[in-house]
């Protein structure tokens, strides 16, 4: 005899198809083992329903008032924060850092490659006439090689940019965190 243990819970919960339901009913008529097992599921269900809810919950008027109070607090918290437009400031700053960093890397790479080519005996000026101009101007006026100049400027500007970014991002992250908690973690218990 094939038992139907795997279908008994779904049978109890009314989740079987009509065909399966008939199959289980028919089997239960002739199998005391499965009947006993079904009885256990039913008894467990009855036992669980015996567990009462505490009677210590607030009356419905008080509950409604407490919800209203939390709603007004939430609205007040939101009103304290500026709109989404303020997200633009740190995002733009970050974009500026990334763009300038990219530019320096690009320029530094080009100059470095050009100098390396010069050391290898390749006449870069013949391929790229502007290089002669850049090398002559930067070398004579500032008395710095292009590589040194780019390095100095890169480091100085990046330090300034990084400091500015940190100065903006630290309060920004704190603000976003507070905003997030006020809108997503409002369920964390607050003292009334």
């Amino acid at each position, binding site marked *: 005899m094939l038992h139907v243990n795997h279908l008994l819970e779904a049978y109890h*919960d009314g*989740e079987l198809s009509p065909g399966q339901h008939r199959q289980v009913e028919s089997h239960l008529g002739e199998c005391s083992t499965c009947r006993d097992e079904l009885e*256990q599921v039913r008894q*467990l269900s009855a036992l669980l329903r015996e567990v*009462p809810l505490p009677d210590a*919950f607030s009356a419905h008027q008080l509950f409604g008032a407490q919800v209203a109070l939390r709603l007004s607090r*939430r609205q007040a918290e939101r009103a304290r924060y500026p709109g989404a437009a303020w997200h633009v400031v740190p995002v733009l700053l970050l974009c500026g850092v990334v763009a300038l960093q990219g530019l320096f890397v690009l320029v530094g790479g080009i100059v470095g490659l050009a100098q390396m080519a010069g050391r290898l005996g390749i006449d870069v000026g013949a391929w790229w006439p502007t290089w002669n101009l850049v090398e002559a101007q930067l070398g004579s006026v500032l008395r710095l090689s292009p590589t040194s100049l780019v390095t100095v400027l890169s480091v100085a500007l990046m330090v300034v940019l990084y400091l500015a970014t940190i100065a903006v991002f630290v309060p920004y992250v704190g603000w976003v965190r507070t905003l997030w908690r006020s809108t997503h973690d*409002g369920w*964390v218990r607050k003292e009334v």
Partner: protein
Amino acid sequence: MHSVAQPTDRELVAQSLRASSAEGASAAFGKLVMRYHKLVISVAYRVCGDAALAEDVAQDAFVRVWSRLSEFRPDGNFRAWLMRIATNMAIDAVRKRRPQVDIEDLALEAPGQGPEGAAMSSERAGVVRAALMRLPVESRTILVLREYQSLSYREIADVLDVPLGTVKSRLSDARRRLKAELTGYLSA
């Protein structure tokens, strides 16, 4: 006798969103709170096992529902949506709660009665409640939605956003554990 037709959930949601004044919106939403607060508290309590925490979760569930009311689809099932938010918040509350409620204390607790009035039935209820609280919160939530709220497997899957197979396996696992723990109370 005239019977005044109660507004449907969708009508109350629409009124909350379209009300021209804050008072009007609050009044419409307040009706939804009154309609469902027992349901939400009940689910939260069964999942959390702590009356104060459950009430806290229930109140904040309504606050969250209010703040996301504009996301509710006009053809949606408000009750299911509310249950989804409330159960997820209750599960989160259980996971984040520190320190954990002492399970052994739960077994002794007889809600609404003093120790001297604890009859055999409430003692048994305490043992059952403690066994329930020892279940993993995911399985317990599914069992609660099935046994106390009589949701179908499909409805539970929708509320918790889990596959149907997960509902079946966790429900079966929860019942298997409880049967093992409560064998003394099951006669068959």
